[in-house]
């Protein structure tokens, strides 16, 4: 395999390809033995190009994963948790919370309740135990706001990639 220098033309083609890859396959990765080859065929490129692009996007942190978004509470249980953390302790508390493998999202938000995170577990007991453990380790009370009804969950949304100022569309 040879590695060619990336020209501007290639970079633009790459951006277009990335955009198509991210937009066209948010819902339905083919359920065939060779899904990436099938995606590549639809995009008019080689399987190796699709795989390389996905790996690059993953390395850059743009692609979280190729995979499933499960219906909430279908597998295990989860809750949205909030804490009101004194500003000077925020980083320290956030680090403690992020270190739990049961935590996926952990954000600072502009509010009296300034730390928001999602905690998952296999069952309600385990979830309660984790929350109690977090409270005792941080000495901060948790507001637990489990989902009661799901009206709409992330179904992907149209993405516009912007690269530099010289893309023609």
């Amino acid at each position, binding site marked *: 395999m040879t590695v060619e220098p990336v020209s501007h033309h290639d970079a633009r083609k790459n951006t277009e390809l990335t955009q198509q890859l991210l937009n066209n396959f948010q819902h339905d990765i083919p359920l065939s033995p060779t899904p990436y080859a099938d995606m590549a065929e639809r995009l008019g490129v080689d399987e190796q190009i699709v795989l390389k692009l996905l790996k690059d996007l993953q390395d850059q942190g743009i692609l979280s994963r190729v995979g499933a978004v499960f219906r909430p509470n279908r597998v295990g249980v989860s809750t949205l948790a909030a804490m009101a953390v004194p500003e000077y302790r925020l980083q320290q508390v956030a680090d403690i919370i992020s270190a739990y493998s049961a935590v996926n999202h952990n954000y600072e938000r502009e509010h009296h309740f300034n730390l928001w995170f999602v905690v998952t577990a296999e069952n309600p007991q385990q979830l309660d135990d984790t929350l109690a453990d977090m409270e005792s380790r941080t000495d901060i009370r948790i507001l637990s706001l489990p989902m009661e009804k799901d009206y709409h969950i992330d179904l992907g*949304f149209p993405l516009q990639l912007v690269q530099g100022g010289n893309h023609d569309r």
Partner: protein
Amino acid sequence: MIDERKLIASLQHGLPLVSRPYAAIARQIDSSEEEVINYIQLMKNQGDIKRFGVVVRHRKLGYKSNAMVVWDIAEDKVDELGHCFGQFDFVTLSYRRPRHLPDWPYNLFCMIHGQDRADVLTNLQLMIESCDVKGINHEVLFSTRCFKQRGAVYIQSEQKKSARV
């Protein structure tokens, strides 16, 4: 028979980026490629998997701003407004959650994305007008820092579990 728990545990980390990813998963969980594909199809058909595809981190793509907007909605209106909010393509979540009085009076949550703050607020204004919720008590919680973001891991690997004990 396929072990559903093992399949989900394996899937939650994402499909391997190899030519035959379902076969690779099958090997990890002592199943077959065909069984894995069929079972994913079944979970999709049943609505257990809401979507099966590329999952991106919006922040990294220039959608740098997101706000969680929380609303205090009368019980008999929550369903209607939850659906109304959910129809916009810049809204990625619309959930009912419990109030915790007196600290927390809000029972409807939605996540709005945009390229920047102004974009998010424009989107919010559009929602307020379309869903006719002017004057309803709400707060806009912009996220300022992301400490951690990855897919949910409901099932810990046996190794990790024992390490925590």
